[in-house]
C-alpha cells in the first residue's frame, strides 16, 4: 500500500515537472524579489512606445485573425492604443476621459461614469506597469520563469470576470522587465495574444499624442 502511494506521488510529481519542462517554465523561487524589481523598473519608466501584433485564436477557425497597430504610454495613465491593420481604430485614455475614433465616427466618454472603460483602463495600465500583480484580491497569481522571461498567470477571482476570461498571462522580458506579451484566455480555450515589438522606453512622446483633437 505504501509503495502504491509513493508511486502515485512520484507519478504526479513527474507529470508536473514534465508540464513545466515542456513549456520551459519553472516556478520563480523568490516572487517577492521579482515584484520589487518590477516596481523599481516601473518607477523609472516614464514613457513606452511600441508596435503590437494581436492574434485572435477562435476554435471555429483553423487560422488566427491578425491585427496590428501601435501603443503609447505616458505617466500617469495616458494610453494610446491604435489599430492600423486590417481596420483603423483608435482609443485614447487620458485625464479621466476616453476618446474613440473608428470608421463610423468619434466618441468621447467620461471614465468615472463608464464602468467598462474604467475597468479597461485599470486593466491595461495595470498590465503595462505591473500594478496588476499587486491585486492579490482580484487575481490568484502564479509566477514562473525560463531563461528569457518571467511568465505570470493571473486567474480572476471574480466569477463575473471568469465568465469572460479564464486566465491572463503576462510575459516580462528578463533583460529589462518590460512586458513582451499579454495573452487573454477565454473559457473554452479561445484566446487573444498581444505581442509588443520594437519597444522604446523613455522617449519623448508629445502630450498631443494623447489629446482628443
Amino acid at each position: 500500500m505504501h509503495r502504491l502511494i509513493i508511486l502515485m506521488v512520484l507519478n504526479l510529481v513527474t507529470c508536473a515537472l514534465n508540464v513545466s519542462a515542456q513549456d520551459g517554465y519553472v516556478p520563480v523561487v523568490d516572487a517577492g524579489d521579482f515584484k520589487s524589481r518590477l516596481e523599481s523598473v516601473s518607477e523609472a519608466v516614464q514613457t513606452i512606445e511600441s508596435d503590437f501584433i494581436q492574434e485572435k485564436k477562435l476554435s471555429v477557425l483553423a487560422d488566427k485573425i491578425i491585427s496590428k497597430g501601435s501603443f503609447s504610454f505616458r505617466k500617469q495613465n495616458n494610453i494610446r492604443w491604435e489599430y492600423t491593420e486590417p481596420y483603423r481604430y483608435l482609443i485614447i485614455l487620458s485625464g479621466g476621459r476616453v476618446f474613440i475614433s473608428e470608421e463610423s465616427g468619434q466618441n468621447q466618454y467620461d471614465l468615472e461614469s463608464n464602468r467598462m472603460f474604467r475597468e479597461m483602463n485599470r486593466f491595461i495600465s495595470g498590465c503595462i506597469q505591473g500594478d496588476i500583480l499587486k491585486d492579490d484580491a482580484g487575481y490568484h497569481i502564479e509566477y514562473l520563469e525560463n531563461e528569457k522571461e518571467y511568465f505570470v498567470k493571473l486567474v480572476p477571482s471574480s466569477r463575473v470576470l471568469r465568465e469572460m476570461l479564464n486566465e491572463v498571462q503576462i510575459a516580462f522580458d528578463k533583460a529589462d522587465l518590460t512586458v513582451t506579451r499579454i495573452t487573454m484566455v477565454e473559457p473554452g480555450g479561445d484566446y487573444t495574444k498581444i505581442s509588443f515589438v520594437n519597444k522604446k522606453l523613455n522617449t519623448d512622446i508629445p502630450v498631443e499624442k494623447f489629446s482628443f483633437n
Partner: protein
Amino acid sequence: MKNLVLTSILLLFFGSCAVSLFSECQCYDRTETGWQEASLWFQNDDSYSLFNATIDIRKNHYTGLMVMNPLPVDGHRVIFMTEFGLKVFDMEFSSAEGFNLYYCMAALNRKPVIKTLRNDIGLITGNERADCPPSALCNEKAGETVYKFKINRNRYYYTVDNETLKISSVLQTSPLFKKVRIEFYGAGGNRPDSVTLEHYNTTLIIKLAHINGIIKTSDE
C-alpha cells in the same frame, strides 16, 4: 368634419404601414422557380467571412469584428468580438440542431435582446428563412422582383435584382407595421461588401463592412 378627420388619420396610418408596400409592383406569376434561382448571400460560401461591425442598441454602441463561418452541413457560426478580441456574442445557426447561443456578454444577455439578435443575424446570413413557397411581385421598371413569404404573423419581402439574381434587400413586417429592413451591397460572389440592418420601432442598427482580414495559418 369628424369623419373627414378620422378618415385622414386612418389614411395617414395605413399609408405608413405595411399594407401600402411595393405599390409600384405588379402581381406576377413567377413564384417558386424564380425564388429558387435567386441567390441568398452566405449560402454557398465555403470559408469564413470577416466584417468590420458596429451594433447600436438603444444608447449602447458596440464595434468590433464579426466572423461568419459556414458549418460543415448547413448553417453558420457567428462571432462578434471587440477590437481587443473579447467576445460580445457567439451564436450558431444549424439546420440540424437549430439555434445555439454559446456566449453573450452580460450587458446584452437578456432574452428579448437575444431573440432580436437571433432574428436579425439569422436574416442576414439567410439562416432564418421560410420553407414555404413565396408569392411574387415584379417591378419591371426597377428590374426587381419581390418575393413575399408569410410565417405566422410575420411577412418577409425579399427584393431580388432580376439581372444578378442577388438579394438587394429584405423587409420584415408584422401584419400592420414594418419591423426590420436589411440592405445588402455587393458586386456579387457569396458574400456582400456591406450590410445595413435597421429596426423601425426600436433603436437597433447593425452595420457590416467586409474586410480582408489577415489570417495566419496556425503554427502551434
